[in-house]
């Protein structure tokens, strides 16, 4: 089942999406402000021969949406070459179920890029695999450096409150430091999709 033009145009614009957010808007807009695309990255989008429709599935409570949708929003605003329309996942399962992560999971955000005939060019789901792997590796490194935390395979519910608090603080500070690098991975993934468009 393809996405029709009529269905696509039912989506919210980026500004309409932000206006209807009921939570996390401050974090979302901070991520938007803090994102600094390189000139080369921006050029990849500005150089598109024409505007591309980009269908987005999102929800305002989702951490990956808060992290990654602001990047797409800035790229769209600054390049003028991405026509972004946003659908709330839980109210648009007919669309969501066409973009399941690994064919199973309703992961968000979804950024689906199309040509002007609404043929799909490619999709970005949740976060780059490289980011997931890096976070997992860091988690294991933290446990190796802090044996008092126990085993990295210990379920959170079985850790002491003290250990959980220590772990959360260690990972939170690292994740904040990694934001620029993770943003770069996201942009790299999006560039890989748009660079398939013939000049």
């Amino acid at each position: 089942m393809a996405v029709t033009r009529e269905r696509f145009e039912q989506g919210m614009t980026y500004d309409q999406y932000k206006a209807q957010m009921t939570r996390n808007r401050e974090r979302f807009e901070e991520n938007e402000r803090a994102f600094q695309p390189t000139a080369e990255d921006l050029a990849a989008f500005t150089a598109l021969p024409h505007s591309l429709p980009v269908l987005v599935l999102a929800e305002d409570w989702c951490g990956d949406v808060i992290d990654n949708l602001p990047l797409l929003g800035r790229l769209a605003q600054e390049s003028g070459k991405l026509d972004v329309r946003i659908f709330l996942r839980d109210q648009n399962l007919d669309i969501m179920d066409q973009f399941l992560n690994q064919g199973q999971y309703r992961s968000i955000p979804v950024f689906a890029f199309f040509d002007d005939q609404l043929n799909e060019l490619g999709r970005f789901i949740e976060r780059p695999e490289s980011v997931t792997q890096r976070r997992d590796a860091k988690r294991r490194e933290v446990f190796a450096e802090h044996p008092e935390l126990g085993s990295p395979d210990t379920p959170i519910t079985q850790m002491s409150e003290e250990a959980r608090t220590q772990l959360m603080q260690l990972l939170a500070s690292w994740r904040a430091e990694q934001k620029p690098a993770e943003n770069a991975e996201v942009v790299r993934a999006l560039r890989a999709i748009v660079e398939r468009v013939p000049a």
Partner: protein
Amino acid sequence: MPKRLVKVSIAYCAECGYEPQTLALTEALMKEFRHELSEIELIPWYEGSFDVTVDGELVHSMFRDGGFADHHAVIAAVRRHQAEAPEPAQGQAPTTTAR
């Protein structure tokens, strides 16, 4: 013999919108057991977690088992732990079963 008071811990991903499932399980436990639980602990976490531990036993993990915990399975685990012999009070010998 009084039932053991059992602790249930639920670690849920607080950036994944898992609050409804967390609160639904909490409500189910509260209504099923009322005063028969020592504690229901809610742990905001991340990384897509939904882990349920009953007296230290991991009875459900989204990572390990997929999806959210089945309420009936968690209730059954609580009942199983309740049926275990309570820890002896200080100064008393542990309860033993004659062979």
